[in-house]
């Protein structure tokens, strides 16, 4: 019976120092080695900065489990000992069958990511699948699994807003700036002071395409140091009157109890800017910018509390969206599992029909000799036995199929094989797992 197994290490199961030891530079040799053995039939390896996971299909679950553990322990994680990190079994997690499918669907839909909803993971999973397909380590079972995972991810992206609401101060600042400005490529940022939060916001704005940056600080050496770090021009706070009119986004984080920017200063700058919008992000505690600045036309002032409140609102919205996304994942996983479980029934249904046919033919031959049937009578009795066998098998096979649409159906499958003693005499050629049509004709 075909089984799914997924073994991996991610940001929740292992710290970065461990994860970086598992980083896979060349996945193809690993995959080829895995499918070369008898334990594993198909394999796909997903390797990102936050996870290394191997999904396989197998007929021998235990053997495949040991093979993957060995792969992680001795092959991928061979550098652990050298880096002084002791191997621990808890670094690895594993998921089987339905859980494996659900986990992969959550990964592809970015529900298992460090930043939920981040878009890169889907591309990385697609790349991993493509690589495995190109090198023929991925067959029909995993292909179906991954295609279904991509469908789920696409649905999550289009039917929910999971990725839409940023949940970090820096990302919220960028999202607000995007509501004011069409593009950041032609915008200038003025950074007054410095701090961890301002640097994060700056990095996020840079990532969004921001090009021009000026840094102003109380002390010349600090200004130069920051300017060097951010590839910006360095200025003193005394230069603010000249710097303000040129800035579209101002980020402040300066120690001190007095306003660094007063409404009158900003108003004068706005006059020189001909009223172009200005976004002021006050990250100072205590605040650096006079709140009256927000009342000026075309000026938008957000302090650290405003940004924090927005983060909270977004997080609440995301958790609602997360529930909807999980429901989509469950639905798509169930659809895939229905196919997989039905596929598992193929050998049993085939064996059962073969057994019944064998008995019918044998009994017919015996009776034909004993009763000395004419050819016409033989044909009549043969048709009668065919009908009887089909009628007797119809209900159990239909029920078996519907039961197999859920995970619990596996037990019924086992029961059917046991009741009809199919494992005792089933010929090996009947166990054709490669046949992917889960609906053989039983009429």
């Amino acid at each position: 019976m075909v089984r799914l197994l997924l073994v991996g290490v991610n940001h929740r199961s292992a710290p970065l120092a461990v994860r970086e030891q598992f980083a896979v530079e060349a996945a193809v040799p690993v995959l080829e080695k895995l499918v070369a053995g008898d334990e594993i039939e198909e394999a796909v390896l997903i390797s990102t900065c936050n996870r290394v996971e191997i999904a396989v299909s197998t007929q021998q679950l235990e053997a495949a489990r040991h093979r993957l553990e060995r792969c992680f322990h001795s092959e991928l994680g061979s550098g652990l000992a050298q880096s002084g990190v002791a191997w621990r079994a808890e670094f690895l997690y594993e998921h089987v069958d339905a859980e494996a499918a659900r986990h992969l669907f959550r990964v592809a839909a970015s529900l298992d990511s460090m930043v939920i909803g981040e878009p890169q993971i889907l591309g990385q999973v697609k790349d991993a699948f493509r690589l495995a397909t190109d090198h023929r380590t991925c067959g029909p079972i995993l292909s179906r699994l991954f295609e279904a995972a991509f469908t789920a991810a696409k649905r999550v992206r289009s039917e929910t807003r999971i990725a839409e609401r940023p949940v970090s101060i820096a990302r919220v600042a960028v999202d607000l700036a995007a509501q004011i400005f069409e593009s950041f490529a032609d915008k200038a940022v003025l950074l007054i002071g410095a701090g961890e939060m301002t640097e994060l916001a700056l990095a996020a704005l840079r990532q969004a395409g921001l090009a021009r940056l000026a840094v102003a600080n109380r002390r010349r050496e600090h200004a130069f140091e920051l300017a060097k770090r951010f590839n910006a021009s360095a200025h003193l706070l005394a230069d603010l009157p000249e710097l303000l009119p040129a800035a579209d986004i101002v980020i402040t984080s300066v120690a001190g109890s007095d306003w660094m920017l007063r409404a009158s200063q900003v108003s004068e700058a706005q006059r020189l800017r001909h009223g172009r919008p200005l976004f002021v992000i006050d990250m100072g505690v205590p605040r650096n910018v006079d709140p009256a600045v927000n009342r000026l036309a075309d000026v938008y002032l957000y302090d650290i509390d405003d940004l924090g409140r927005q983060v909270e609102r977004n997080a609440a919205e995301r958790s609602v969206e997360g529930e909807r996304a999980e429901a989509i994942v469950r639905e798509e996983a169930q659809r895939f599992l229905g196919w997989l479980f039905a596929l598992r029934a193929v050998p049993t249904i085939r064996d059962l029909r073969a057994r019944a046919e064998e008995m019918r033919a044998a009994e017919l031959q015996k009776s034909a000799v004993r009763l000395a049937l004419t050819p016409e009578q033989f044909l009549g009795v043969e048709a009668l036995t065919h009908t009887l066998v089909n009628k007797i098998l119809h209900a159990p096979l239909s029920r078996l199929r519907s039961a197999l649409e859920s995970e619990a159906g596996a037990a019924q499958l086992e029961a059917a094989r046991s009741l009809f003693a199919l494992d005792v005499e089933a010929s090996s050629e009947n166990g054709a797992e490669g046949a992917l049509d889960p609906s053989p004709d039983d009429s």
Partner: protein
Amino acid sequence: MSEQLIYWAAALYLAASVSAAAGAAQASPTLRRLGVSLLTVAVCLHGFSFAVLHRDGPPPLTDLAAAVSLTAWLGSAAFLFALLLWPRLAGLVVLVAPLAFLGVVFGFLPVDASVPLPVLAGRWSHLHVLLSSAGLALLGLAGGAGALLLIEDRWLKAKRPLGSARLPSLESLDRAGAVAMAVGFPLLTLGFITGVLWLRGATGEWWTGAPHQVWSALAWFIYVGLSSARFFAHQGAHAAARSAALGFSFLIFAVVGVEVLW
């Protein structure tokens, strides 16, 4: 057949409005895209209905209802064209689609408001209606962009931002408003001039003092002031948006309201 097409166009404008409103409320790009798609189909049908109308002779554009309908069509078409240049303006569909719907529905109302002038000098009359409608449509777009900018501005100032995925950025709304006004006002001016020429051809007078003329002239002078403030006095985005929204409200009253009331 033209009437059937107009009914279908109106239904599609309404569907586009509902889809766009739901898209904005739920921040759903899919619903917003659906709104734009429905609007596109509506514009095609609406345009086709004018073509069918034209097949049976010059369309009766001097009829106020037809002129408003034409304005709605031109405005929607201009918006779809603007989307090719600035895709982020798609959020504006939430205003454009309902306005287009109202424009078409206006044509269904039993309004006896055809311009009380003999339809002579056909070239001038049709040119006047076409140019004025195009100007009105573009100034309507400027007004719509302005109104949306004011709403977004209010939410941003109140520290309750709507999210960048829901609506266009303030900058793109401001830019779209500026372009719409820069093209729309000259068209309105040409419409005004051709209107005067039509009047001269029809009555032999340049000025009759009819309410339509007086209010239209007043609206034109207001737009002279608004355009000057916007393009020469470096008016800020917020003030320009407010001017565009108020200016268009006045213009609609001057062109449509006055005809209905008097």
